[in-house]
């Protein structure tokens, strides 16, 4: 049972929610007890892996005790985000859903198309609708990939910003 559960998590590119798992195991008697196996996996992990709650589901991560070794494999760290990109992402993450004119108002400067494009290519933002105002501007929000990248369980986990400098 534990192996079957692991096989699902190992093969999945997306976090799997309890609802999704329930749909897969359905009422198949062969997989009764999957919930108990999930609890054990969450509590103890498996070998070098730990199961972590992220973006409304669970996904496998490598246990931090192996990080020094992994750094030798993944020598190319992701490029740091520019200040403009980071601020735009922050506005979308904390104020979502938000239109581009609103983002520009928050930052006090225009937001170049390349900034939005970069965030879209990362898969971190997407259009989720339109505001019913003149021009019907697109409403931007963060995606599940954004939460996965920053290991957030939900948007409520976004850290509180300190401003009173």
């Amino acid at each position, binding site marked *: 049972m534990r192996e079957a559960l692991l096989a699902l*998590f*190992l*093969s*999945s*590119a997306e976090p799997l929610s309890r609802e999704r798992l329930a749909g897969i195991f359905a009422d198949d008697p062969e997989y009764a007890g999957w919930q108990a196996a999930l609890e054990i996996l969450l509590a103890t992990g498996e070998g070098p*892996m730990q199961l972590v709650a992220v973006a409304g589901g669970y*996904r*496998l*991560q*490598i246990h*931090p005790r192996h*990080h020094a070794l*992994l750094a030798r494999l*993944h020598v190319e*760290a*992701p490029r740091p*985000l520019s*200040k*403009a990109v*980071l*601020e735009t*992402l*922050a*506005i979308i*993450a*904390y104020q979502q859903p938000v239109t581009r004119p609103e983002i520009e*108002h*928050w*930052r*006090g*400067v225009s937001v170049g198309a390349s900034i939005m494009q970069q965030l879209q290519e990362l898969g971190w933002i997407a259009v989720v609708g339109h505001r019913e105002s003149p021009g019907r501007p697109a409403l931007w929000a963060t995606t599940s990939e954004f939460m*996965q*990248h*920053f*290991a*957030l369980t939900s948007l409520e986990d*976004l*850290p*509180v*910003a*300190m*401003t009173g*400098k």
Partner: protein
Amino acid sequence: MVNAGMGQAVQVNGQPLDSLPEGLFIPPDALELLLDSFSGPLELLLWLIRRNRMDIRDIPVAEVTRQYLQYLQEARRRNLELAAEYLLMAAWLAEIKARMLLPVPPTRDDEEMDPRLELVRRLEALALVQGQAEALQSLPQSGRDFWTVNPVHYEDLSPSPPLLELIDIAAAWLRIQQRPVRRDQPVHQLSNPAMGLRQRMVEVLLCCRRDHRPWSLLELLPELSRQALTMSLLAILELLRQEALQLLEDREDGWQVSIAGMEVPQRA
């Protein structure tokens, strides 16, 4: 305006901007760097206010405007390109300054009439965004601070069969037959439309396909009922007519056929 005497004493590279001395002092190459690092006039203004340790809610507009304009003049003196937004901000600051000199009309809510209010709102919003950007930056990031399990490969899973029932196929065939048909291309219509004949035709083809050699007619005729024999014979004749089978030679021991489109080794 610019204290050129101290210019050599200050290192620009590698120095955080906040370490610049109080008052307006811009080392030779610093201004360009400075303007580059700001995303716009609002941010330059926020930086000036923080550097002067002013209260964002009670901005001494005259002093901030003076410093702000000095930066702009210095930039212009050095022929640096400034976005129009910087000049708009200058105009806004001048307007606020002018309105603050006017006597305040009597109102119930003084704060509502403070000409600085909108500017304060904008600055506070920017300060909040900067804080949020920093907070995001502090989060652990995948591929930098932790690693996820890359999806493990699995071999091709067979696709689930489509939702389809036999009757759907029959209905589709019926629809096709009822359509007006173009007659400009040959279609091999059987005189006898029975599916049994088609079944046998496919079987004969598959049989010939198993082994790349000429087949004698007898080999292809099952020793079954007369009806089956008739059907097989019909199937072979039909396949020959449709040129799906090739008649190789008409010998004493009977016909030999082979599947069309396939090279048959010559017998010595």
